[in-house]
């Protein structure tokens, strides 16, 4: 899965031969039986993917990462990734402060990616009235919901928005005169099964369970106040 992460062989992806399903037979397990498998067969040093993210720019993968867990303690998870070009790796860690996005990304070059939720996201998740929708930025008018922003000290900034259709992505790309982020395969997914690449489902419109909004995320990267690229975040899960 990884090429540059330290101990990369310990991070097991869905389709790897030694993913967690390889330790189970095709039958129902009781909790006790599963515990025996975990305690006796599954290696302690392996981390297994729960959610995998590929970040697309200009039809190519820029970053690959995942959320990993270990069967002996479901409550501990690790969130790491690497830039495909090997320039940096990234690990997320908890950071208090923002009411919704309580994490920061630590890059291997020592820089930190900071996150701030938007007023729209705060209102949608928790009916909060704080925050801003980043009106000081050059925002594509076709976007309906700006979700968050990130920034690196003396580095790039990124405005994240809710992708509601492939056409919206196209219009955003046209607005900034940038290439669309997806390739042909992703284009098909965006057109036919957009919600399958969601980061999360959230009751963003306060319509109750069954009407949660699939949060498909893309971001506009700004460098020196100029939009330089569009990122699309594709999340995949086990058996999808």
């Amino acid at each position, binding site marked *: 899965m990884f090429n540059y992460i330290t101990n990369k062989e310990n991070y097991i992806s869905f389709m790897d031969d030694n993913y967690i399903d390889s330790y189970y037979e095709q039958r129902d397990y009781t909790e006790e039986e599963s515990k025996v498998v975990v305690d006796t067969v599954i290696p302690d040093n392996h981390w297994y993917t729960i959610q995998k993210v590929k970040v697309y720019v200009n039809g190519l993968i820029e970053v690959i990462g995942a959320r990993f867990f270990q069967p002996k303690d479901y409550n501990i998870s690790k969130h790491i990734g690497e830039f495909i070009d090997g320039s940096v790796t990234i690990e*997320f860690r908890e950071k208090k402060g923002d009411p919704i996005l309580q994490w920061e990304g630590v890059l291997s070059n020592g820089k930190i990616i900071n996150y701030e939720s938007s007023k729209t996201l705060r209102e949608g998740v928790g009916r909060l009235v704080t925050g801003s929708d980043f009106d000081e930025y050059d925002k594509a008018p076709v976007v309906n919901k700006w979700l968050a922003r990130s920034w690196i000290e003396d580095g790039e900034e990124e405005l994240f928005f809710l992708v509601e259709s492939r056409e919206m992505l196209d219009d955003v790309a046209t607005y900034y005169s940038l290439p669309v982020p997806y390739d042909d395969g992703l284009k098909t997914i965006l057109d036919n099964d957009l919600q399958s690449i969601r980061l999360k489902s959230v009751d963003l419109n306060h319509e109750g369970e069954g009407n949660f909004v699939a949060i498909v995320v893309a971001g506009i990267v700004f460098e020196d106040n100029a939009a330089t690229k569009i990122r699309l975040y594709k999340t995949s899960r086990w058996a999808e």
Partner: protein
Amino acid sequence: MAYGFEAKNDSGNIIINDTIENLHFIGKASRGSSSAGHGTISGYSGSNSTLDGRCIWTYTITSTGTPVAFIKPADYDRWHAIIKQSVSGTTWTFEVMISDTATENPPELYCFVNADDIPVPSGENYGMLVFKSDGTSKTFDSRRQPLAITGGDNAIPPEDPTNSSGTPGTSTGHAWNYATNDHDFRSSNQYTVVPDSSINTSNTMFSCPSIAQAVYKRQMHGHKSSCGCWIWNWCACGYQDHDSTAIWWVMYRSAFRLRYDSVAETGYFDAGWTGYASGYQFSSSWESGGWFGGGGGSYSSGTMPYTAKTINRLDNAYIVADSSRYD
């Protein structure tokens, strides 16, 4: 030195003598700054966010004695209460809370003190002074207007300050991140009524301590559980719990309203509540995974000053008077 004098009314009640300290009008307190807010629950944007709102005005007056303050409403539809009285040297400061966030129509504050604490008007060397047995301290001084009480009784606000039936409580079983308040925290319908024929809504002013306080909260717990990966009907990645808590709270002070029914031709002294402060807390937890899983955090627009309950709720004596005597 001689002392003593006694005057009675037609009913034989003593009005002036050498032991009863009459209050005398020292002046209207000067109105200073105001702060308005809490027309909605602070920090919250959903249903049932509306509160009655309140505006707090600060007044000051200089007096060597402790003043008794009367509120003369400019808008008799609003609720009024003196929520704080303090002194620094001889400067007395009052905070008067009025329902609604509008800063128009602030009330006037008429202040009364003992005869001994009334400054002697320059050049007025005539009239009637009544001294106590010590021959030096006064109980009455005709050079200042004595307080004429025109009515009064006891009043007590209802225990529950909120318009919704019953006090708000805690409930579980809501959807994850559910944060829709279902309790009406306004107080407009929550008051007790004391008929008082001496009250009108032209000149009547009142004095009544705001002692009762209340804090109430609505709390909702939401939950969602999801499995990261199913391996042959076994949740091999473990269940991920998504929990959320939403809390709305309002703090109240007892407040009062003077009312007049022109049909019944009688007045009323209403004892109720006005929201003084409010807050909203929200927390939502799931894994802090950056792009790879979501996030979770908490927010608070304030912390409740004490646990939910009503305190200091007692019968309060109130007195009313005619403000036009002192204009």
